[in-house]
């Protein structure tokens, strides 16, 4: 009990709640040919599961993507489509 802090607080650590990608029912699939690197998906993703590359290309981290679909909704060139899992 002494090791617990006074009030609930924690250092942010990637993956502290496990591989939350398993919660997904639909997965975002990216068509690199249509991507214009506007980075809106990267900005909007609430889980930081859109990974930005050095050249501003993007990739999706399926370990933590919960499949909410915001990236697909925001993408102005329809480069991301939601595909049912399984």
């Amino acid at each position: 009990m002494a090791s617990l802090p006074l009030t609930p607080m924690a250092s942010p650590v990637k993956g502290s709640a496990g591989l939350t990608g398993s919660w997904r029912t639909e997965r975002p699939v990216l068509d690199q040919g249509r991507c214009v690197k506007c980075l809106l998906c990267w900005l909007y993703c609430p889980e930081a599961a859109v990974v930005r590359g050095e050249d501003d290309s993007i990739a999706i981290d399926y370990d933590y993507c919960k499949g909410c679909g915001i990236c697909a909704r925001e993408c102005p060139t329809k480069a991301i489509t939601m595909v049912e899992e399984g």
Partner: protein
Amino acid sequence: MPRIVVSGNEAVAFAVKLVRVQVVAAYPITPQTTIVEKIAEFVEKGELKARFINVESEHSAMAACIGAAAGGARTFTATSSQGLLYMGEMVFWAGGARLPIVMAVVNRSIAPPWSIWCDHNDAFAVRDAGWIQFWAENAQEAMDMVIQAYRVAENEGVLLPAMVNLDGFYLSHAYEPVEVPEQQTVDRFLPEKTPAPYWIDVDKPMSYGTIANPDYYMEFRWKMQRAMDEAARVIREVDEEWERLTGRNWGGLLEAYRCDDADVGIVLIGSWAGDAKEAVDRLRSRGVRAGVVRLRVTRPFPARELREAVEGMSAVAVVDRSLSPGLPSVLSAEVKSALFNAKRRPVVRSFIAGLGGRDVSPKDFERIAESSLKEGEPAEVTWIGLRGVAPW
């Protein structure tokens, strides 16, 4: 020590200035408003170097105080009645987050019916929020209590928020002579805050208020109870130190007035203790041995001190300025619970009075004390001054 004539609200504002509060966030509500108006004036004139944050609601006021306190600032707010209820969610948050915010609650009844007048239901509505709850009898005590409240709340073994309750209008707007402690006295009594283990550090980012599943939640709550136990000790200690500095000792957790040889004790909180003491003096001049037990603090509840204060009394009259419909008296229930396991306990009689600012006179307190000494089964509760069914 300069002596000034101020209202209870102004006394609180002077105390806030003396403790060098750094952040104030508040929203106006009667009868609290003149506290933060006076503080705003101090800030505007440069007499108090504090950030005054104007907010759109009491919920936001407490949210701003929570952020400021987590950042390490000495923080103050004030509210009343509906404002405290609207703030409610954040009030509980401040308790669980262990932030030593001090808030003045100028007690006002709850609507409907609308009423700006005094009773204690507002503060009792948040009695389980993990806040220390102090109750002032007069303007001088309200000033001293705010200063003491910071010392208690910021104690490293306590780290809980503290609420200083003062009766709406009876204290908030009535003018009394008050001795103002010297700035250097207060600076010595209350030095700058020492960092708490959770202070926000931009170089070491943390998540606050994180989830604690069933395997951890209970321990955090247990720690709050332990902090309240410690607060009881610190409150007594701090009041004794205050006496050495100012000559004023308010009694620690409770004040026992003429209780030593008393047969009957009136137990209450707040400003009407003055009327009860007047009644006790009159009763004693007629040979009735009565006393007053005024609780200065209801969280932590001073159970042990109460048992000691009423030892040897045959009856105790709890006069409650609040109502829990269906109980009906919270204060009586708490007094009874504290006395139940005492070896020799007095009969406890329960009175509801003064709701919504209904006047209660010293004569009423005389009758309350005398009727409590009569033999017979105690009534579940007696309402004082209720139209049509009043007992006298």
